[in-house]
């Protein structure tokens, strides 16, 4: 029996540490720990709720904009503001762009190296690589010459003896199964995806001024003014053409590169359809309103909960049932750490009680993480692309059902295969395809509104804080790339009294609760094989399949009555 520690878990956002018990070549227990804390919600107290999104957005720079959107949703909910249709469309376009971008980067730059052995690509025959590429896709960059040039670049890198980012990889690990040609193709697409992500994200630059950290959200709408005749307007006919062109290029990349690659890689790693299963409970708040945000029935991706892998029933989501535990987190609750608290009644008193750094192991039977443990009706939930896809699938959304069924047929796998490490990867790819295809439609709708003179982009009725009630509170939901995101805000005397975020990676990466129930990562790691405890590649595969985002996950909740003891430095 051996305790293995992976810290830092790299190729993720933020600071994650995994400790795992390995018995007989298999993980028997695991603990997930977030090792960084900033306290952004504390910092938000007393500030203007209209600018909360600017601050909250900095919770994360990888899934940038998702906290901005959840924040304006929360403040609009509190103040009873309905945004114009154009603002809804622009927000959908920005959000779908973010998710497509994030998923592509995740697959190629954060996850692929768990499955792709770069060094093996040196042995590939470029002619055979070209044949392989052409057999799975009509993507034009597939000539022998092209793959030879990529291989030359890898050869040069290895010959230089300076492997740069790739120096400390697990190359040659027995769990790598791709043939050299598939590895070479994947390396080529790794580089192409680097190029793609920076081109595609120009949609955010047009509609948000920049990426990361967009700057055009407003409580009440967007600052992206529309005018068919003004070159100074953010949205005009020329920009619509540009957005369409970029959105279509994303469709091509996703359909011709990303999807075929995922299917090809999955074919060589079929045993990972049976690993990394995890909790079996899935939750999605639903996202992408196609009408009022108050009515989830019109959402492009449905809202709901699936329990115990039962796809025959979708349970409703009631925000009142979300709570958080700190039993195993470095915080204190007044009234004891055994009971959970709803975000509106939450508290945050950071209190580190772990080992004094530098340390070798955490005290995992005590408190061991800066993440809290969110629960829905006391149940741990997995959130993210797989949860969204399963909820949409089980809800009978026709486009999702057709796509999932067709993919499962191609993979010769039953729906139950989706409850796995590879299932998360497949779900993320399929969601990317759905959104990339839908994105052009939303841009066209925006273009139609522009053409027909529907130019309203902001509802300014409640912009003046004098128009607000003395107190108000509300919440905003969104499905970020990594899963269900909720912001809760309490406003008093025109300022933020209390601000809280319960975010995707807190659901997934959180520690145990008062009853000892594991979080999603911890549960998914059970029974994961580890061939070489010194190089736990398999552990990374399952953890990465969730696409961890730790900066998001660690936050301070509430602070009602809590005075921060630290003076400003």
């Amino acid at each position, binding site marked *: 029996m051996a305790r293995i520690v992976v*810290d*830092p878990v790299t190729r993720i956002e933020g600071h994650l540490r995994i400790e795992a018990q390995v018995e007989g070549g298999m993980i028997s227990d695991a603990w997930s720990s977030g090792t960084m804390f900033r306290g952004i919600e*504390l910092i938000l107290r007393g500030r203007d709720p209209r600018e909360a999104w600017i601050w909250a957005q900095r919770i994360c720079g990888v899934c*940038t904009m998702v906290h901005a959107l959840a924040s304006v949703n929360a403040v609009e909910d509190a103040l009873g503001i309905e945004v114009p249709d154009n603002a809804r469309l622009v927000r959908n376009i920005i959000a779908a762009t973010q998710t497509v971008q994030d998923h592509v980067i995740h697959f190629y730059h954060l996850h692929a190296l768990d499955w792709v052995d770069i060094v093996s690509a040196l042995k590939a025959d470029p002619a055979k690589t070209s044949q392989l590429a052409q057999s799975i896709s009509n993507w034009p960059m597939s000539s022998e010459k092209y793959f030879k040039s990529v291989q030359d670049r890898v050869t040069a890198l290895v010959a230089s003896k300076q492997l740069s980012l790739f120096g400390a990889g697990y190359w040659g690990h027995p769990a790598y199964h791709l043939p050299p040609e598939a590895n070479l193709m994947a390396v080529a697409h790794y580089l192409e995806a680097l190029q793609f992500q920076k081109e595609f994200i120009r949609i955010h630059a047009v509609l948000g001024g920049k990426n990361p*950290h967009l700057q055009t959200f407003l409580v009440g709408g967007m600052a992206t003014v529309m005018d068919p005749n*003004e070159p100074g307007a953010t949205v005009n006919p020329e920009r619509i053409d540009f957005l369409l062109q970029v959105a279509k290029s994303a469709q091509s990349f996703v359909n011709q590169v990303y999807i075929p690659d995922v299917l090809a890689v999955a074919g060589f790693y079929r045993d990972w359809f049976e690993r990394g299963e995890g909790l079996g409970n899935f939750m999605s708040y639903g996202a992408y309103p196609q009408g009022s945000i108050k009515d989830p029935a019109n959402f492009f991706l449905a809202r709901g909960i699936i329990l115990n892998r039962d796809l025959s029933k979708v349970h409703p989501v009631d925000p009142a049932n979300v709570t958080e535990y700190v039993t195993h987190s470095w915080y204190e609750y007044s009234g004891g750490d055994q009971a959970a608290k709803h975000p509106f009644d939450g508290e945050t008193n950071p209190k580190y009680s772990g080992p004094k*750094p530098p340390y070798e192991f955490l005290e995992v039977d005590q408190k061991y993480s800066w993440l809290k443990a969110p629960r829905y009706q006391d149940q741990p939930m997995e959130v993210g692309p797989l949860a969204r896809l399963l909820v949409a699938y089980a809800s009978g959304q026709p486009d999702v059902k057709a796509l999932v069924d067709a993919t499962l047929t191609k993979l010769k796998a039953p729906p139950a295969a989706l409850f796995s490490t590879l299932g998360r990867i497949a779900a993320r790819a399929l969601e990317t395809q759905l959104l990339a295809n839908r994105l052009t439609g939303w841009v066209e709708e925006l273009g139609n509104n522009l053409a027909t003179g529907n130019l309203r982009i902001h509802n300014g009725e409640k912009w003046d804080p004098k128009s607000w009630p003395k107190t108000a509170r509300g919440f905003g939901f969104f499905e970020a790339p990594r899963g269900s995101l909720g912001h809760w805000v309490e406003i008093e005397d025109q300022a933020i009294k209390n601000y809280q975020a319960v975010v995707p990676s807190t659901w997934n990466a959180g520690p145990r609760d008062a009853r000892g129930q594991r979080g999603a990562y911890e549960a998914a790691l059970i029974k994961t094989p580890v061939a070489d405890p010194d190089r736990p590649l398999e552990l990374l595969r399952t953890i990465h399949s969730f696409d961890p985002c730790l900066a998001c996950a660690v936050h301070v909740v509430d602070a009602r009555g809590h005075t921060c003891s630290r003076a400003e430095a």
Partner: protein
Amino acid sequence: MRALRGTLPKALSIRGVSRREFVKFCNLMVATLALPPRYLSAVEKALTQSTRPVLVWLEFQDCAGNSESMLRTSNPTVAEFVLDLFSWEYHELIMAGAGKQAEEALERVVREHKGEYIAVVEGAIPTADGGVYCTIGGKTALEIAKHVCGSAAANIAVGACAWDGGLVRANPNPTGALGLQEAVPGLKNLINLGGCPHNPANTAAVLVHYLTFHDLPALDQYSRPLFAYGNIIHDQCERRAHYDAGRFVEEWGDEGHRKGYCLYKMGCKGPEATYNCPTVRWNDGTSWPVKAGHGCIACASHRFWDTKSPFYKRLPSVPGFGVDVTADEIGWVATGAVAAAMVAQVAGNMVRDKMRAKKAAEKASEPLDSRGA
């Protein structure tokens, strides 16, 4: 075009690039730095060293937004940085190795390249309670920063958090967060590239500059490169003519907003902020916040989260400033204070004006965006 040097063919074969590609690339570098053509040979030489300089990128109390921003760089691209220009040996967000292997890679750099490598730092460093608010591999961010940055040839703090503590340090600063230069005083060759996030075009220029000349460009009192932080945003703004003519956005989405009028009344901080945002723009020069319709939040100014918020509050009248004061006056106040310190435009003349700018910077009492900071 200068003839390529004798050692070049070998160097090219090592890099796996054709001669044509290489020449194109060198020209691109020269353009990035806005150097006169005669610097081409220096760039060539820098790019054909048999060993690439080693770079490590440390993330502390961060959101990874600066790492993501770096992925968006075009001149050079991130692939060129990582594969051709540097040996980018540690970067949690994108490196292949994890856990023990990652930590060993970092330790090896400190041990084998002491005093030779570049350390890029992203995120603030918590100093309260023994630094427990950020640990990596069981070690505190502060300990890692002292160890790694203390042995680096140059330290580059990217983004607001690494520069001055940024958002993490905003009141009440729950974790005692500081920027690199305050958390680890006395670091040599430190350069701050503020912004939330940093603009990767500027960082790329600094890296290529360092690669070529083994030196940093001219800096201001905050150790920021003058080429990027020497000019007031308001003076470079495409909406400036509207300001001068008294045409303002009065309400979000109004006719003035659609026509691209000045955002001053909506809280824009452009008149008090310096950055080359309006000229370099973002994401391959596509746009920047003011162009996209929202006011500037002065994200490249010192401790902007506290000093420049509330972000929708109109800037107060300050001597020589106000809507009722003519634009000319504003212009004179702005440019008069540090006219001599300003290096022409964007990355232009970074090298040629280096000595002159340094001297001028010494004379300037404080940076243009330091009010309230």
